[in-house]
């Protein structure tokens, strides 16, 4: 480590210590011994580990220096609220309800909860801590691994607010639950640590959408974490949509705990942000559980989009499928690190992982790395990755029918992105997300392919998994 980096790190340490001490003194529920301990232990873990560097295997392709050296502050308590009209523009049609958070804090004035169906409780986490923390205690902090991930530790240390959703046994909630996290400038660079806890009891069904949006171009750091506990036989679709500004740092973690025969679909769509790290960590802890991890990341400019999957099979007969599609243009850098752990008891595991990437420029870059750790002897595990450009033959075919090059290019990009949409269950959440993806794809720069006789520049070829 260089001397400068060392100094930078200890300054960051001091800064976060100061911020934590200040926060901890008046944090919601700090009179609750268990909650206080949860936060303090988490902060100790964070201090000991520090921010990861590229020497950490899990962070090899992502340089966090710009995040580490920025002096982030918690948003002021008396933050001005945005216009209701701006929030309305972000609504999901036919959502059951919408909770809005500004810089990680619940904004009841902007939220809608009139039509929350029976069988589901939707509350701000801070409010739940205040009124009925007993419901939280068995689960909150019980799953996120603060020892392995310093950002999970940091989020837990600064645990303040977010969404608490509880779906009652057998309840089937058709309309999506919308959670909107808005990042808004506050003068100084702002950090927020939204924390969500979703508990879906046995045989329940629900769809939850987390949407992360910046309303301005201010530098912000959003470190979000969601614990999703899915009971036996329950079916949950979870969407994470990230469309923050070009100055945003976004780290998010979805930690899923699945019971027997539980079925979870996780859809992650990364569209914005300067530096984004998306962690998806399902644990299949009951026999016969299934999970689908479906992702799309689209980067342009100098965006860095890092996707870290950690699927853990703990019990027999579980299935997991990871499908991630990436589109990278300009100097954007994408990462896909797909880890699968199959424990000794997890016989008859069926795990599949596929990462497909389209590079649209010579400067675009993808690092794709499968990592399989298999401790059972009767399993099926496949992985594969492809890296390519827009297919010339397909492009010519479309143009030969009268579609001009820009239109043809956009159509092919949309077709590629639609692979991700096609894995989403039909409904208003899917339609909502599909339209946002379409707009993003159509907004991408139109340009001729960089001439590269070999097909791919050297920079575009890194750590290839076996092609399927």
């Amino acid at each position, binding site marked *: 480590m260089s001397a400068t980096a060392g100094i930078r790190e200890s300054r960051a340490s001091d800064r976060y210590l100061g911020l934590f001490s200040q926060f901890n003194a008046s944090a919601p529920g700090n009179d609750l011994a268990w909650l206080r301990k949860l936060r303090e232990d988490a902060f100790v873990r964070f201090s000991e580990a520090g921010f990861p560097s590229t020497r950490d295997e899990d962070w090899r392709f992502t340089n966090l220096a710009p995040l580490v050296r920025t002096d982030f502050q918690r948003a002021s308590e008396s933050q001005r609220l945005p216009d209701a009209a701006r929030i309305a523009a972000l609504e999901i049609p036919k959502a059951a309800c919408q909770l809005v958070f500004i810089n990680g804090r619940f904004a009841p004035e902007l939220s809608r909860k009139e039509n929350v169906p029976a069988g589901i409780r939707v509350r701000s986490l801070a409010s739940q801590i205040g009124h009925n923390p007993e419901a939280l205690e068995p689960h909150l902090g019980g799953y996120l691994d603060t020892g392995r991930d310093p950002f999970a530790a940091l989020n837990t240390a600064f645990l303040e607010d977010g969404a608490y959703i509880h779906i009652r046994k057998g309840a089937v909630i058709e309309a999506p639950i919308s959670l909107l996290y808005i990042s808004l400038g506050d003068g100084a660079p702002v950090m927020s640590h939204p924390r969500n806890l979703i508990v879906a009891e046995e045989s329940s069904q629900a769809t939850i959408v987390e949407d992360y949006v910046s309303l301005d171009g201010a530098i912000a750091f959003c470190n979000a974490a969601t614990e999703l506990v899915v009971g036996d036989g329950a079916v949950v679709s979870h969407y994470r949509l990230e469309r923050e500004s070009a100055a945003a740092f976004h780290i998010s973690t979805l930690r899923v705990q699945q019971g027997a025969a539980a079925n979870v679909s996780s859809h992650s769509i990364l569209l914005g942000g300067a530096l984004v790290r998306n962690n998806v960590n399902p644990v299949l802890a009951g026999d016969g559980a299934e999970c689908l991890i479906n992702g799309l990341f689209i980067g342009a400019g100098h965006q860095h989009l890092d996707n870290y999957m950690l699927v853990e099979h703990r019990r027999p007969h579980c299935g997991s499928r990871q499908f991630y599609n990436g589109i990278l243009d300009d100097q954007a850098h994408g990462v896909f690190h797909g880890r699968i752990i199959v424990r000794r008891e997890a016989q008859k595991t069926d795990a599949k992982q596929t990462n497909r990437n389209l590079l649209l420029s010579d400067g675009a870059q993808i690092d794709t790395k499968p990592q399989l750790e298999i401790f059972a002897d009767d399993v099926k595990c496949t992985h594969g990755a492809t890296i390519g450009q827009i297919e010339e033959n397909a492009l010519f075919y479309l143009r*030969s029918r*009268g*579609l001009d090059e820009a239109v043809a290019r956009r159509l092919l990009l949309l077709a590629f992105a639609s692979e991700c949409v096609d894995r989403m269950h039909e409904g208003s959440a899917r339609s909502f997300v599909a339209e946002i993806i379409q707009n993003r794809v159509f907004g991408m720069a139109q340009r001729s392919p960089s001439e590269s006789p070999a097909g791919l520049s050297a920079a575009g070829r890194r750590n290839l998994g076996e092609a399927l």
Partner: protein
Amino acid sequence: MSLLEIRNLHAKVGQHEILKGINLTVNAGEVHSIMGPNGSGKSTLAQVLARRESYDITEGQILFQGKDLLAMKPEEAACEGVFMAFQYPVEIPGITNAYFLRSALNAVRKYRGLDEMDAVDFIPLLREKAALLEMDDKLMNRSVNESFSGGEKKRNEILQMAVLEPKLAILDETDSGLDIDAMRIVARGVNAMRGPERAMILVTHYQRLLNYIVPDRVHVLMEGRIVSSGGPELARELEEKGYGSREPVTRGAVPA
């Protein structure tokens, strides 16, 4: 004015010259066939006409309706009325046949100053043309050529031609890989589109297709040059005697 005039066309790929001085005139209402052995440059000629940009035109001119075809991009040529039925149509997952065709038709209509057609008006039109080619409606909602058999792909090409109504249709080895039934269906579709305003060029290795789609003129392409031209009987002669029997000869000469 002839519909298509190719004058002394020379084309190469890399260092390799494939077309070595092609001269050809095609008038509206005519059906021409270009026959030749593998490697003679048939597909190259078809692709150059469709404006594939990977070929280097080193000499010559192509006039389409009096306009400089070589100055046009593929989409411009298409909108002007050039259509090529591909020898190997690609599959394009994620874009349905119906959506693709409607987009293509609207691109051409827009170019000609016509209103775009919405889905409501387009579907019956598509159905009518699909029925002519005995293609199931369901195939239209599948991605372009996705999991289509060879015959279905070729029929899909002719379906596109039927919808887009080009002035010049180039069929690049449309008969390759087709069984008798598929050939009959394709030929019916193509023949239904013959007319005084339209010209066709059938690029083919085998004479078989020409029994179903009888050409007005037959040209033999060998090693990048048209070595002879004649009426439909020339095709039968080739079938009997093979390409090896052809030397660069004048029309009507009988080899020893």
